[in-house]
């Protein structure tokens, strides 16, 4: 039924083209479930679904292809089974990691006309983006975070790729702020979770010096260091071997003595409000407040801190060391009560356990409506990316991406903003930096060829200098460069340069003209039909090596003049939106379900309201 609608929209000819198309859907979660249904109803010929996850109870409120009976089953296969009865498409489910190049080599990706990302993490997004760049196959990127969402069509070589704009990653806090001068509740939560909990129950490796890296053999010095770090150990010892009576000592140390010590450092408090050590507080074991949605009093927090510490001490005896898990009630209550008590001391507003759970677990609630809207946009825009619509000029940079706006206050006028796609960022470390090709070897040369031989072949074939460097991007290691040839005599097999390894080869600046051969990324394939080794030709491009550390360009400010485009539409700059879009994109999304897009170095797209002139 849906197919008929699409058929009318695109016409018979293109519709039958769609029925011959293969698409890849990466991720069968919040967006993926919605998108799978859409792609089937649109009538694509063959749909492959990849997901490595299994279904969790917490998925059921929004991933509608799953039911309670499906818990712990593979997402990809379950999703496919749920939609089979209304599908005219051929469906193929794969339970696996999309970055596993043994299961999903580049040659496998080659079969698809378009890739859809419905992912929840940055590294898989980056990986699929790279595959799309290697193969020159379009990618539809999407993500949501709470009420916010976005889609971004990526047409290799024509539009910005996923990495053309910097992605903001979760904020890290300087150790000084966490340990000495917290000013927000989140600092106290990080202290409680990453420092205190780790110290007491996690084996405390983070901040505990080991014998080897003391940097000295002098016994008296070692003794001094040990003395100094004793305090760190002391807490750990208390919870490890002590009994319940130690809990009071722990409270005293953390919330009274340590604070008094901080207070002695007068300089810290010249411009800050001084913390106030706890007075004479006793934890009580009756009247414990267990309501995670209520605002606890200081006494409630201290009672809970004592109670949860005791429980965790007991658990430590049987479990050896504990790893923080936001869904573990004892751990959550420990972290929440410790963070709140510390917050009280530093005059910071306390929060409920429920709120602290979101901070500690970096949780932004996933919202099914946002997912459905984003999946809808993703499938709709794919028609334009695949050139299936007869509309206004269809150049790649005339296709819109989309961001939700209203819910995130990006604009008070409308729900979505749809800036047009920008061309690739010339400074992009992924799409602009490299030429890309595949090196194919047969089994025998893979086993016997030495790294030095491969390097020489690449150098001769592509015109690199003696100073070229070879980086294994798959396992982040430098294999050779101007000052490092130790591995030349090792074989490719010995170096574990397996199928799917991505090698980045780049050159040093030449003395004559300050240009270098443009870097190349090679994808390694194995094929026994190949005679020794196969290198496809690439145009020889020399580039001026830019100083990477120069200050990035200041954002260009547009003057707000209307921009006329050739299709009879006027794009009107929306100043309010412009500033907000940029701000919005800077929000840290990357550790959130399905989320991603953020910072743009330049404001260069027409971020506009479209008014059609009839």
């Amino acid at each position, binding site marked *: 039924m849906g197919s008929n609608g699409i058929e009318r929209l695109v016409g018979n000819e293109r519709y039958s083209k769609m029925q011959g198309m293969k698409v890849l859907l990466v991720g069968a979660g919040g967006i993926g479930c919605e998108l799978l249904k859409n792609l089937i109803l649109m009538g694509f010929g063959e749909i492959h679904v990849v997901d490595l996850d299994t279904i969790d109870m917490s998925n059921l409120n929004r991933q509608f292809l799953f039911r309670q009976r499906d818990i712990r089953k593979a997402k990809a296969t379950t999703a496919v089974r749920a939609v089979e009865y209304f599908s005219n498409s051929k469906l193929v489910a794969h339970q696996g990691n999309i970055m596993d190049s043994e299961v999903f080599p580049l040659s496998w990706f080659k079969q698809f006309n378009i890739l859809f990302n419905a992912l929840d993490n940055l590294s898989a997004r980056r990986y699929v983006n790279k595959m799309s760049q290697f193969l020159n196959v379009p990618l539809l990127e999407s993500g949501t975070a709470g009420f916010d969402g976005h889609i971004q069509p990526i047409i290799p070589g024509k539009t910005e790729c996923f990495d053309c704009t910097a992605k903001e990653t979760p904020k890290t806090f300087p150790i000084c702020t966490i340990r000495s001068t917290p000013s927000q509740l989140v600092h106290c939560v990080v202290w409680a979770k990453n420092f205190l909990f780790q110290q007491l129950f996690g084996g405390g490796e983070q901040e505990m010096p080991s014998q080897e890296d003391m940097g000295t053999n002098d016994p008296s010095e070692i003794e001094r260091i040990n003395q100094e770090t004793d305090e760190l150990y002391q807490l750990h010892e208390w919870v490890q071997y002590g009994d319940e009576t130690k809990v009071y000592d722990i409270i005293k140390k953390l919330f009274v003595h340590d604070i008094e010590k901080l207070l002695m*450092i007068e300089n810290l408090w010249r411009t800050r409000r001084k913390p106030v050590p706890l007075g004479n507080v006793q934890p009580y074991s009756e009247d414990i407040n267990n309501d995670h949605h209520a605002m606890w009093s200081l006494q409630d927090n201290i009672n809970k801190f004592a109670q949860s510490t005791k429980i965790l001490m007991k658990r430590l005896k049987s479990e050896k060391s504990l790893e923080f898990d936001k869904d573990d009630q004892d751990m959550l209550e420990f972290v929440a009560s410790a963070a709140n008590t510390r917050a009280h001391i530093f005059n910071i507003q306390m929060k409920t356990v429920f709120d602290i759970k979101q901070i500690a677990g970096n949780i932004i609630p996933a919202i099914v409506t946002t997912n459905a809207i984003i999946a809808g946009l993703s499938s709709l825009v794919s028609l334009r990316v695949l050139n299936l619509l007869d509309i206004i000029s269809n150049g790649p940079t005339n296709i819109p991406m989309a961001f939700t706006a209203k819910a995130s206050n990006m604009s008070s006028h409308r729900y979505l903003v749809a800036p047009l796609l920008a061309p690739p960022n010339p400074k992009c470390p992924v799409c602009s930096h490299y030429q890309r090709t595949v090196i194919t070897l047969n089994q025998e040369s893979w086993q016997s060829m030495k790294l030095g031989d491969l390097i020489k072949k690449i150098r001769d074939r592509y015109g690199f200098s003696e100073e070229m460097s070879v980086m294994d991007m798959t396992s982040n290691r430098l294999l050779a460069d101007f000052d490092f040839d130790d591995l030349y005599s090792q074989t490719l097999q010995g170096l574990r340069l397996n199928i799917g390894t991505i090698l980045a080869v780049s050159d040093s600046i030449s003395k004559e003209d300050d240009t270098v051969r443009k870097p190349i990324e090679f994808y390694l394939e194995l094929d026994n039909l190949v005679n020794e080794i196969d290198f496809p030709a690439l145009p020889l491009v020399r580039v001026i090596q830019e100083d990477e550390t120069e200050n990035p360009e200041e954002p260009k400010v547009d003057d707000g003049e209307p921009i006329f485009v050739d299709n009879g539409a006027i794009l009107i700059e929306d100043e309010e939106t412009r500033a907000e879009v940029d701000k919005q994109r800077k929000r840290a999304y990357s550790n959130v379900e399905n989320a991603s897009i953020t910072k743009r170095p330049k404001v260069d797209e027409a971020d506009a309201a479209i008014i059609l002139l009839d």
Partner: protein
Amino acid sequence: MNSLCLQRLQEERKKWRKDHPFGFWAKPTKKEDGSMNLQKWEAGIPGREGTIWKDAVYPITIEYPDDYPSKPPKVKFPAGFYHPNIYPSGTVCLSILNEDQDWKPAITMKQILLGVQDLLTSPNPDSPAQEPAWRAYAKNVQEYEKKVLEQARRYTK
């Protein structure tokens, strides 16, 4: 796999080779398989001449996170290193290494190492990181200098 991070670290390696300040050394660590790990370096910082830190080269490690250069690297001395702004674990507390303060993606390894050298001789009394050195520095200069000299002897060039 963050391309920007690795590209930038290769740049840093080239730059360091072309130009580095006298008395300093820095090299990437090696992984078990013999390849180089550009995300973790070892380096030596000479104490400035004419100060109590002189005649020694202090070892540090520099760890670059995947988000480098958006995020700063982490610089560590050996655990227990005696200095007011160095945590008992050896972690250096320095504004240019702090994302919230003065870190900028354009800061190079050379600038970091010179910054740390500078920190050795000019501690910042406003950001104490360990008690013994901080207290001695503030209250008992003789004791402070004695400890620093003792430490310098252990890292003699």
